[in-house]
């Protein structure tokens, strides 16, 4: 795996400037919504902007103390996306009389506090490697939770992925994406050589041994399990894509991609034949503009109204409050990209895609810079999860691929998604801090493994 070197500089002041720009963008978006929909600038508006500014500046200060060398652009980009999402959800609330905006503010605060806690308490990302197999167990438990009677929220919009505890609902699968990335990073960083070296070579392809294939098959079974029992195609694609990319990055063997694509082909064709909900998704996608499908329940009405909305927006958009994005079903969660496309136009949508691309690129950059295999794999896995999620949902909304219910990271209304994505941000910041930190001995104390060595050398314990 490759490594990049740059001169170490904290660059926290750059981050502060960009953060102020991002907060200005969020404030202007919210102000435009109020202005265009004839709302007064009441206390709510100022309180909400103050909360967002306070939390992100608190995060900035924590980074100054706890992760001085962390990447300076990640936090501003994420704050800009989150603030814009809040404005769009608020705008849709005004049209529909919903209270999703209030909940989104609450969850944003909670998610940022959680991310700050991760940066504060996680001394070094390599500590997570100790929890490799616990992470696997946690992922399995999290994925099974929505199926447990009593806390399961049942079938919501066709998928069983929610749990309900009291008045709160939560999607544990969102957190499972982090724990699975930790498991795969830990497993692959220890077993990379085995997977690399053992096995037969056929032509240019080095095929892995069957028992080294085991984790890949477990991953495939997990994705299929999610598809069968939770009827959630999006999460299933997300998990499998995550495993495939992490194995490829760990081994740089193209044969893994080919095996993965073969498994996807087999799984995809089988799922299309066996599961009615998959068949329906694909039929709706192919025949989206057919009037028969537009009118049908769970038909293509949602996608088509999204497409019409984006067409109405055109190049520059109708402006906040001037379009009719509220007529799209689930306009503030699954279809938020269509809502933005209508009111901010292609120009605004592309700016958002650029922000996503920049965030993902910074995640990969952190992976290139960090010096341990576990950190590299974890950073690649987490950023790729965000990238794939963007592709699956934005591709679905724009009818490039069948629409599946994944959330648009940082933008869409949904607490669990915000929470898990902000934790991902915290982990990537922590890894980028390790990557950019100078390595000389006079610098800050090197983490974890160095401290206990003298003790260990004197009183050794037999290894398990």
């Amino acid at each position, binding site marked *: 795996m490759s490594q990049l070197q740059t*001169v170490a500089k904290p660059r926290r002041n750059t981050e502060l400037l960009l953060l102020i720009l991002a907060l200005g963008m969020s404030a202007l978006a919210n102000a435009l919504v109020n202005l265009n929909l004839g709302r007064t600038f009441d206390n709510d508006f100022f309180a909400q902007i103050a909360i967002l500014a306070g939390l992100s500046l608190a995060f900035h200060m924590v980074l100054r103390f706890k992760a001085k060398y962390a990447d300076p652009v990640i936090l501003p980009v994420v704050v800009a996306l989150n603030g814009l999402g809040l404005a769009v959800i608020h705008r849709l609330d005004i049209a529909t009389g919903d209270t999703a905006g209030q909940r989104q503010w609450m969850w944003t605060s909670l998610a940022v506090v959680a991310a700050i806690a991760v940066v504060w308490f996680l001394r070094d990302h390599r500590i997570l490697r100790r929890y490799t197999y616990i992470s696997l167990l946690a992922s399995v438990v999290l994925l099974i939770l929505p199926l447990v009677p009593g806390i399961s929220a049942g079938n919501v919009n066709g998928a069983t992925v929610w749990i309900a505890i009291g008045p709160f609902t939560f999607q544990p699968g969102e957190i499972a994406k982090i724990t699975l990335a930790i498991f795969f990073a830990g497993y692959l960083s220890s077993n990379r050589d085995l997977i690399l070296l*053992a096995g037969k070579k056929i032509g240019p392809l080095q095929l892995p041994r069957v028992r080294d294939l085991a984790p890949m098959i477990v991953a495939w079974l997990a994705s299929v399990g999610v598809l069968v029992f939770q009827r959630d195609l999006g999460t299933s694609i997300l998990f499998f894509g995550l495993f495939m990319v992490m194995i490829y990055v760990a081994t740089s063997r193209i044969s893994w991609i080919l095996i993965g694509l073969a498994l996807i082909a087999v799984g995809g064709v089988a799922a299309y034949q066996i599961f009615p909900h998959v068949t329906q998704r694909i039929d709706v996608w192919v025949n989206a503009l057919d009037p028969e499908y537009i009118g049908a329940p769970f038909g293509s009405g949602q996608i088509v109204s999204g497409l019409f909305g984006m067409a109405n927006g055109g190049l520059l958009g109708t402006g906040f409050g001037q379009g009719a994005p509220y007529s799209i079903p689930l306009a503030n969660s699954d279809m938020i990209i269509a809502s933005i496309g209508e009111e901010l136009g292609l120009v605004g949508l592309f*700016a958002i895609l650029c922000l996503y691309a920049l965030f993902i690129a910074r995640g990969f950059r952190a992976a290139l810079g960090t010096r341990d295999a576990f950190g590299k794999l974890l950073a690649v896995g987490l950023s790729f999860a965000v990238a794939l999620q963007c592709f699956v949902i934005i591709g679905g909304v724009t009818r490039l691929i069948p629409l599946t219910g994944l959330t648009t990271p940082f933008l869409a209304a949904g607490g669990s998604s915000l929470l898990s994505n902000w934790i991902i941000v915290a982990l990537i910041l922590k890894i980028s801090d390790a990557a950019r930190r100078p390595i000389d001995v006079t610098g800050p104390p090197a983490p974890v493994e160095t401290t206990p060595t003298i003790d260990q050398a004197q009183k050794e314990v*037999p290894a398990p």
Partner: protein
Amino acid sequence: MNDLSLVVTILRFGFLALMWIMVFAVVAAMRRDLVIGRKAKVGAPTARQARRHPELVEDAPPAKVQARQLVVTEGPLAGTTLELSGTPILLGRAQEATLVLEDDYASGRHARLFPQGTRWFIEDLGSTNGTFLGGNALTRALPVELGVPVRIGKTVIELRP
């Protein structure tokens, strides 16, 4: 067109402009990292970079004589030699290891020795008792020079020409 709608129109396009200002500001902030080949080069720094930024030079100069053998000097397997080819070597008690250490103080997958360029590097794979290169515990992959002892549990190995 009254005054308010003019303000709203200006703000509407102003917001789109602000989004792109944000994008370009971020790109400008990270351009140092994007200029691969000048300031952020993949691999070893050039002589000029090393002069300007001495902190970039972190590793010892490459060994002149290449290592050809791995010799176990202490521990249960003392005396064993292993010819080095171009492939990585896994050290540990696990049966899959390249050199299976019969050492109670070694972990199953203890450490990994891999070639890069003309040198061999050692990396600890999260072992219980750690790997020591010339008396110092490893925290990351480090180059192994000829004749420098690497201690894994009770076993000590060395690279020889």
